């Protein structure tokens, strides 16, 4: 019985945190990335409404690299942005981009960020997205 519970616990050893865009809307880039990484360090898979700016995405990669070896058991992240402009026409896309650059965000997008120790891979193609977890 005890064994069974332990086994189950291991399989379910991950948690998901949802974050509406409003939580990061008024933060600057440094604060945003700090907030995102803090959640990932706690081993949560973060589902963020909206997306980071391109330079924030690279900043996130840089800061992730800087933290490997400094945070225990941290090996990096898995990251995927599902954007609303994937399916739309070029003109809509352009319009979207302009709107995004003005407002920041792109609320139609969803960003998934998880610790690499929990998320093995985020498999994606234009039609679907799959989260593969580490056992």
């Amino acid at each position, binding site marked *: 019985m005890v064994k069974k519970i332990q086994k189950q616990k291991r399989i379910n050893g991950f948690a998901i945190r949802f974050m509406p865009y409003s939580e990061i809307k008024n933060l600057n880039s440094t604060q945003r990335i700090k907030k995102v990484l803090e959640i990932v360090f706690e081993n949560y898979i973060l589902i963020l409404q909206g997306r980071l700016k391109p330079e924030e995405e690279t900043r996130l*990669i*840089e800061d*992730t690299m800087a933290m490997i070896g400094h945070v225990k058991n941290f090996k990096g*992240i898995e990251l995927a942005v599902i954007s609303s402009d994937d399916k739309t026409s070029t003109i809509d896309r352009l319009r979207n981009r302009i709107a995004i650059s003005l407002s920041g965000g792109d609320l139609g997008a969803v960003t998934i960020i998880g610790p690499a120790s929990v998320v093995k891979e985020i498999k994606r193609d234009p039609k679907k997205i799959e989260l593969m977890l580490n056992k």
Partner: protein
Amino acid sequence: MAIKIVKNFFKRIFSGIFQNKKEVKLGFYGPPNAGKTSLANRICKDFTGEEIGSVSKIPHETREVQFKEKVEIEYKGKSLTFKMVDTPGIATKVDYEDFLKYKVNKKDAKIRAKEATQGIIESIRWLDDMDMVVVVLDATENPYNQVNITLIGNIVARKIPILIVANKSDLRKANVKKIEEAFPEYTVIGMSAKYGKNLEEFYEEVFKLSKKSK
């Protein structure tokens, strides 16, 4: 009016003369193991006789930005001088245990991982310096990878002219078309760095693109 014409005339003549002196900084970017160094080596070897760095099947072989200056590429009677910049592959995770399966010992694997993380930071920092970027992707891999998308998004946001290479086209599993479909807004060249396949088209595009760079 006349002065302006004369000025422009001299400007043209001088830029013509100095065109070969001005180096175009050409960056090779992409995920680990895509063949960035293989491609940069082939070009450097063809035009200088020397290679830029070492190639390996072990990921993160290149862990420091390496460059070769004054590489004069001649193509169809035209000539341009490049500073070739080969960068460490960009990834969102680095696990030293991944190196163990290549018979790297644990201590060296840890050092390699540490250097790889620093190399990734260095790659990203160098991006702002580039006049032109070749994104090298492995055509046997799924192109819908966030690193590719983030990298290309950043190059475009920085207004740097970009060219995508779908490398390893010699392999049966290679799917150049899939890369074209993933990035329809950009020029994608299917080629093999290892066997020197389709280099002509590559040079053609590089020369075309160099006109757009600042």
